[in-house]
C-alpha cells in the first residue's frame, strides 16, 4: 500500500525525521488558510501516488496566501500522471543548498534491506548514473547501525552537522522501514538548508501482507473500481486495453496466457490471477467481474493444483445460471479433479478444452467475430 506524501510525512514526524512545516488541504480556501499560517511563501504540492509530479506541473510555488489559493484551485481535480488530485500539501518554501537522495528498499537478490543514497537527489533516481549511487546492504539481524549511517554520510561527501543530520535521518528511516513493514521508503529530495537536513518529499510503501499489524495507518486504495473490487475477493487484477477477458490461476500462467493470446492476434482486456485454491464463491465473483468489463469473449484457463477443477466448473455454472454469460466463453480445464470438472461443465452444456493453444485459438476467433 502506497501512502500519499502527506501521510508518509506524518509517519516521518512520529519517528522524528524533520519535514517542512505544512498541512494538507482538500479545498483552495483551506490551502490559502494554511499558506497564511505559514507566512505566505509556500509550495503547493498535488498529492498523487505517482513519481515525476514536479515535471508534470503538479507542484506550484506561491508568494502569498492568495497565490496559494489560486495554485490549489488549479491543481485540485486536475489529472497528474493518471491520478486525479484530491488534496494538496501546502508547505513552507525552503532555501535549499543541496538535494540528496535516500531510500531503503528490499533487495530481493540479497534477501536483505538495502540503503540507497546519492548526493544527486531531486531528480528521477533512474537518471542518476550507477557510479553516483551508494548502496549498502543491511544484515536484517543487526539493522542499520550508527557507524554505518556515519559511513554513508561521509561517502556522500558530507561533513560536520550536515553529516550528522543525514546519518541520524538514515537511522530513523530504517526504523520507519522496519517498524512500519515498508517495502520501500524514500526521501527524494533530502534537502540541506544551512546546517539543517529535511525530508522535502516522502514516500512510504507498506507491505500489503503486513497491513494486518498496522491498523493505525490510513487506508489508501489504488487502482480502478474493478481492480479494487477484485482485490476485495483476495485476487489480483490489472486492467488492460483489449477485448478478451482472461482469468487463469497463478501469476505466471496468467501472464503466459496473455502472451499467447497476443501471439495469436488477440487483445487481452485484463490480467486476473485467480490464485491457488480459490473456491467456488470467489471464483464466481471473479467471473462476474470479468463480465462487468463488457468483453467480446472470455477465456478461463485453469491448470488445477490447489485449485480444483470441479470448484471452477461449479463457479462457471453458477454464474451462467444466475446472471447469464452473454458473450462467448472458452474454458480450458486440466489438473486436480479434472474429470469431475469436465463432467460438470458437460452436464451443463459447456465444453472444456484440455490444450491451451486450442483454447487460445478458439477465443481469439470468437472475439474477432469469426
Amino acid at each position, binding site marked *: 500500500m502506497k501512502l500519499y506524501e502527506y501521510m508518509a510525512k506524518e509517519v516521518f514526524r512520529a519517528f522524528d525525521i524533520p519535514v517542512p512545516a505544512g498541512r494538507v488541504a482538500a479545498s483552495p480556501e483551506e490551502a490559502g488558510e494554511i499558506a497564511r499560517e505559514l507566512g505566505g511563501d509556500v509550495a503547493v504540492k498535488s498529492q498523487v501516488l505517482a513519481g515525476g509530479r514536479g515535471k508534470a506541473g503538479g507542484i506550484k510555488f506561491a508568494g502569498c496566501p492568495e497565490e496559494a489559493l489560486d495554485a490549489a484551485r488549479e491543481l485540485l481535480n486536475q489529472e497528474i500522471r493518471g491520478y486525479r488530485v484530491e488534496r494538496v500539501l501546502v508547505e513552507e518554501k525552503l532555501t535549499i543548498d543541496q538535494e540528496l537522495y535516500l531510500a531503503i528498499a528490499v533487495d530481493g537478490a540479497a*534477501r536483505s534491506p538495502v540503503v540507497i543514497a546519492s548526493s544527486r537527489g531531486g531528480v528521477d533516481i533512474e537518471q542518476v548514473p550507477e557510479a553516483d549511487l551508494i548502496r549498502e546492504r543491511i544484515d536484517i*539481524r543487526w539493522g542499520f547501525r550508527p557507524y554505518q549511517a556515519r559511513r554513508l554520510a561521509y561517502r556522500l561527501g558530507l561533513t560536520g552537522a550536515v553529516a550528522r543530520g543525514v546519518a541520524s535521518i538514515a537511522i530513523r528511516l530504517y526504523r520507519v522501514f522496519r517498524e512500519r*513493514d515498508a517495502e520501500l521508503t524514500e526521501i527524494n529530495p533530502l534537502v540541506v538548508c544551512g546546517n539543517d537536513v529535511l525530508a522535502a518529499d516522502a514516500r512510504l510503501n507498506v507491505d500489503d501482507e*503486513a497491513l494486518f499489524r498496522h491498523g493505525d495507518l490510513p487506508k489508501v486504495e489504488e487502482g480502478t473500481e474493478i481492480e479494487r473490487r477484485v482485490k476485495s475477493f483476495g485476487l489480483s487484477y490489472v486492467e488492460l486495453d483489449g477485448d478478451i477477458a482472461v482469468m487463469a*490461476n497463478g501469476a505466471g500462467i496468467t501472464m503466459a496466457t*496473455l502472451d499467447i493470446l497476443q501471439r495469436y492476434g488477440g487483445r487481452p482486456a485484463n490480467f486476473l490471477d485467480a490464485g491457488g485454491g480459490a473456491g467456488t464463491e470467489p471464483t464466481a465473483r471473479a467471473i462476474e467481474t470479468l463480465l462487468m468489463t463488457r468483453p467480446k469473449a472470455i477465456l478461463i484457463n485453469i491448470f488445477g493444483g490447489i485449485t480444483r477443477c470441479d470448484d471452477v466448473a461449479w463457479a462457471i455454472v453458477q454464474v451462467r445460471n444466475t446472471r447469464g454469460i452473454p458473450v462467448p466463453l472458452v474454458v480450458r480445464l*486440466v489438473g486436480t479433479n479434472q474429470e469431475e470438472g469436465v463432467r460438470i461443465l458437460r452436464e451443463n452444456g459447456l465444453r472444456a478444452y484440455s490444450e491451451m493453444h486450442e483454447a487460445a485459438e478458439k477465443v481469439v476467433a470468437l472475439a474477432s467475430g469469426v
Partner: protein
Amino acid sequence: MAILVDKETRLVVQGITGNQGSFHTKRMLEYGTCVVAGVSPGKAGRAVHGVPVFDSVAEAVEGEGANASVIFVPAPFAADAAMEAIDAGVGLIVIVTEHIPVQEAMEVIAFARERGSTIVGPNTFGVISPGKCKIGIMPNHIYQPGPVGILARSGTLSYEIAAGLSAAGLGQSTVVGLGGDRVVGLSFTDLLPALEDDPETEAVVLVGEIGGSAEEEAAGLIASMRKPVVAYIAGKSAPPGKRMGHAGAIIERGKGTYESKVKTLERAGVEVADLPWKVGEVLKEVMG
C-alpha cells in the same frame, strides 16, 4: 540422486491439522512421500491420515527422525513455524504459505543461513523428485521420472510445462518451485550447480517471468555449464509499470523486462522457447 529430496527424505508437515495441511498430506502419502510426522501446537497425540501429530517440530525430529518440513501454517504464523523448524535442525524447509510479510521472509532466510538450513519458498508449490518424493501441492499425476531438471518461479505455469514434457516422454529428475514472492530462499543460481552435478539430470528447464533479476543472474552461471538449459519466460505482453499478481512480477526501473531476460539468457547459450508447449521440442533438439 536427484537434488534436495529423495527416498531418504522424512517429512514433517507443519499445520497438518488444517484443511490444506490435511488435504496435501493425503496427496503426498498417495504419491509415496515418506511423511513421518505432523505438527500442530496443542494437538499432540492425534493422527492425520495415520501420521502422528506432535506439538513441536523438535519432537517430530526426535521422535520420527524428520529431516524435511513443509509448512501449511497461515501467513501470520508461518515465519515462526519456519524458524521453529530451523531451530530443530531440519535441513530442508518448504514454505507453501503465501502472503508472508517480506521482512519476515528476510528474517527466516537469515536464520536459515546462520544454521545451515535450506528454505524453499515462501509461496512455492514445492519440490518433487518424480517417483521418489513429493513435498508440496503440485498435482500428483503430471510428473514422470526422467532426465530434466526444472526450476520454476511460477507454479501453475510449471505444471503446464512439466505435464507437456511428461507427455512428450521427457521425465523429470527434480522440479523445484522457487516461490512467487519477491524474497525467496532459493534462486536459480543456488540450484544450477547442483543440477549440473546431479548424474540423473541431463538438461535443465528454467521457468521464469518478468520482474527481478533472477534470470539475468542465472545467465552468468549457465554460460559455464556443460548441460543444456532451456527457458520459458512469462510476461512478454505485460505493460511496463503494472503489477501482475505477486510481488515478483513487477517491471520497474527498466530492469527485469522480458527483453532483458531473453537477451541475457540467449547470450549465455540458453534456448528460450516462445510458447510453453514448445519447451519439449526445444529440449529434444538441444539434448540431441
